[in-house]
């Protein structure tokens, strides 16, 4: 199928890239269908709305810059996408990235992780119950923290 994407225009998408959000994304509840694309720039992904071409989110896997990250979401939320906390094999965790004009300042939302059931291709924006995780973690700062701790 062809999908009109914000970053790459009209492109051919494999059916397996289609992700259904039964409850939408907070603030975008009416948009339920997205496609997940690898961005040309690693390590990012695009989550592109199939309904509104201007709506696309940049995603990152949070463990890249926070190896200690656990989303700590309620099992009830996972049930909504037919996952259990033990079912790590079928779940993929992403954070939505906000990139301001000064890209060094880009942040990731660890409080509202996107959790994907990779088998059923359904996903949900969950809410972390751990106060440690905020909506704006500075990715570059976190990365340099990792590097400093490795050295």
């Amino acid at each position, binding site marked *: 199928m062809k999908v009109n994407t*914000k970053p790459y225009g009209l492109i051919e998408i494999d059916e397996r890239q289609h992700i259904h959000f039964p409850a939408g*994304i907070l603030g975008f509840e009416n948009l339920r269908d997205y496609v997940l694309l690898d961005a040309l*720039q690693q390590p990012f992904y695009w989550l592109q709305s199939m309904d509104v071409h201007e709506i696309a989110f*940049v995603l990152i896997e949070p463990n*890249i810059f926070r190896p200690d990250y656990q989303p700590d979401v309620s099992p*009830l939320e996972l049930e909504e996408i037919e996952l259990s906390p033990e079912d790590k094999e079928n779940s993929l965790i992403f954070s939505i990235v906000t*990139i301001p004009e000064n890209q060094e300042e880009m942040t990731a*939302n660890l409080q509202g992780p996107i959790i994907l059931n990779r088998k059923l291709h359904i996903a949900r924006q969950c*809410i972390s119950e751990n106060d440690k995780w905020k909506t704006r973690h500075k990715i570059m700062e976190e*990365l340099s923290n990792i590097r400093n701790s490795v050295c």
Partner: protein
Amino acid sequence: MLILSRKKDESIIIGDDVEVSVVDIKGDQVKLGIKAPRDIKVYRQEVFTEIQRENLAASKTGTKLPEIELLQQKKKQSE
């Protein structure tokens, strides 16, 4: 909006099985107890608002993404 006055240790019932009680009042802070079936999710409203606001900001991200491939290599080295 329905507005009810409640004192400490009083409660309200919502629907058949949700009970919200005032556990404690100290100055401008009210401590609430919520008894609800386990399939009812309860969140602080500001967390919702905060995530909504961040999603809106994120949706305005331009299509030109930064190149941080180098940092990924750093990560691989550290593994």
